[in-house]
């Protein structure tokens, strides 16, 4: 595959989906910060009106100076959570964006017939489909994470500034936080997201390339209807598996794996051995990447590749009719 062509295919996806790839996380982040600032102002106003002085007269500063190791780790945990929380919200937005992007990626241009323009160019259908996969699983997450980091940093500054009004040394607080560590963990999670999301991305793109109309209906109704049949007739009993197996491994995996973090929540067979003391340490790459040891992940990757091959085939032969 020609790398230059591929670069421009990705760029094309960004042009078309600037609203959902870029503005959705940026606006969500902005609203998140605004709500936080409003919350802080409300708290300050209420506090002042009721004569409650938080850490007045350098008390809080004094408290921090007196803290022992356990207490400082609690403060840094609070600050790290402040950073992660922004990303938590953006992850949900990212999941929604990727879900609908995949459903429309190979369908919308068939519906408005612009596929006839794209197909008039010397670009293989495999490159087209792969450019959509990369846009969904790498481009959109990278933009979301960068936005998440920016929002997280601003959030951190807002919290620190607020506390500094109450006599706390802002720099001392910021030193207690681990912004670079958090950034590293978030960026490092993207490849894992790619692997985990692959079967869902494959399924959604397949429906998008195959459905003659309403791909969302097919994408959702097909697995859910199958799930209901399976539950009704207790089919999973044939394989000695509970009915929930189907819902968890087929329906949920095929539709919701595009939501970041679902792999870390549902992907492990047993318990993961969280290395580290507590708090947000489960976000450390050493912990999150234990998912690589799960068969669930790799079976999903293989199934996802198969579904993508199907999507490429349908992209080749489906036209605007």
């Amino acid at each position, binding site marked *: 595959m020609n790398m230059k062509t591929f670069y421009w295919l990705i760029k094309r996806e960004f042009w078309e989906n600037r609203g959902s790839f870029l503005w959705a996380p940026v606006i969500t982040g902005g609203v998140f910060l605004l709500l936080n600032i409003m919350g802080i102002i409300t708290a300050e106003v209420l506090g002042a009106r009721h004569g409650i002085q938080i850490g007045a007269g350098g008390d809080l500063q004094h408290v921090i100076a007196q803290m022992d190791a356990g207490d400082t780790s609690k403060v840094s945990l609070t600050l790290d959570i402040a950073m992660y929380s922004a990303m938590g919200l953006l992850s949900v937005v990212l999941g929604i964006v990727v879900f609908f992007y995949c459903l429309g990626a190979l369908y919308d241009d068939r519906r408005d017939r612009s596929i006839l323009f794209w*197909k*008039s*160019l*010397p670009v293989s259908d495999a490159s087209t489909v792969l450019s959509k996969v990369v846009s969904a699983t790498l481009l959109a997450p990278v933009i979301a994470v960068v936005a998440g980091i920016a929002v997280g940093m601003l959030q951190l500054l807002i919290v620190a500034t607020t506390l500094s009004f109450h006599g706390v040394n802002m720099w001392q607080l910021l030193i207690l936080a681990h912004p670079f560590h958090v950034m590293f963990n978030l960026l490092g999670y993207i490849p894992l997201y790619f692997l985990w999301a692959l079967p869902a991305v494959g399924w959604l793109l397949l429906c998008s390339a195959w459905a003659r109309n309403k791909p969302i209906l097919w994408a959702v109704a097909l697995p859910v209807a199958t799930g209901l049949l399976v539950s009704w007739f207790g089919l999973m009993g044939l394989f000695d598996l509970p009915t929930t197996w189907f819902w968890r491994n087929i329906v949920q995996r095929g539709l919701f794996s595009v939501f970041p973090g679902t792999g870390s929540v549902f992907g492990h067979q047993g318990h993961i051995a969280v290395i580290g003391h507590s708090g947000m340490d489960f976000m450390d790459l050493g912990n999150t990447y234990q998912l690589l040891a799960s068969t669930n992940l790799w079976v999903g990757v293989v199934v996802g590749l198969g579904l993508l091959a199907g999507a490429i085939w349908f992209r080749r032969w489906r036209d605007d009719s």
Partner: protein
Amino acid sequence: MSAVITASGLSKRYKSALALDDVSFRIAPGRIVGLIGPNGAGKTTALKAILGLTDFTGELNVLGFDPRKQRDQLMGEVCFIADVAVLPRWIRVRQAVDFVAHVHPRFDRAKCEAFLARTKLMPNQRVRQMSKGMIVQLHLALVMAIDARLLILDEPTLGLDILYRKQFYHSLLEDYFDENKTIIVTTHQVEEVEHILTDLMFIRDGKIVLDADMDAVGERFTEVMVNADRADAARALQPLDERQVFGKSIFLFDGVGRAQLEALGELRRPSVSDLFVATMKGTYA
């Protein structure tokens, strides 16, 4: 020179109907071929087969490629405008030019920009803000800047006003066409293309019913204006078509000698549309 397109035994069946029925033809380079047929005759199916957009049975060779298996290579040499307004509505002029410039190895950016400079299109304008005529101008500017050996136009001027239509064919002839290029065009506005065509193909019910170059068409088909008293003599020669104008009958003959016809009345060269109407008689009946 070898043919640009060779088709033999081309068939395509949709669920309900046969869109192409054992079609064979050959198109030489440097021609402008009009593929003319009524709605649903199989024109678009034939073009889609040539472009590798649909599956079919039979043999088809386009510029040495099999469109089913070698579509990616083929599209480096072929351009098409399939219907008006298939450009994505979100794209800007600048983006469209950028994209094609970087993806198509035979695209000449300077040429494209020169074409665009003659229009009112603005670099930041989106397709959704353009009229149908402007969209076609953009599409034509993109396509004419590509040095392709085969250009396929499927109803390229449908729904455009006469100014845009004239300009479209004018640009195509003046700035694009040369002896190394081949153009296939389908259209219902036969009058507008008939003087630029070098070859004519009529398609009806999935079959090619006429495949000839324009000179041969002129020699083969003759129209005669016959007074009422000689009409029966004309009918005896088995005309293709007969219609009445101002009390005279106009007969269309296929392959009847000129000397024989001159005796009946005034001879005329039939227009492609008259020929078309005569050939397609009863299509929708």
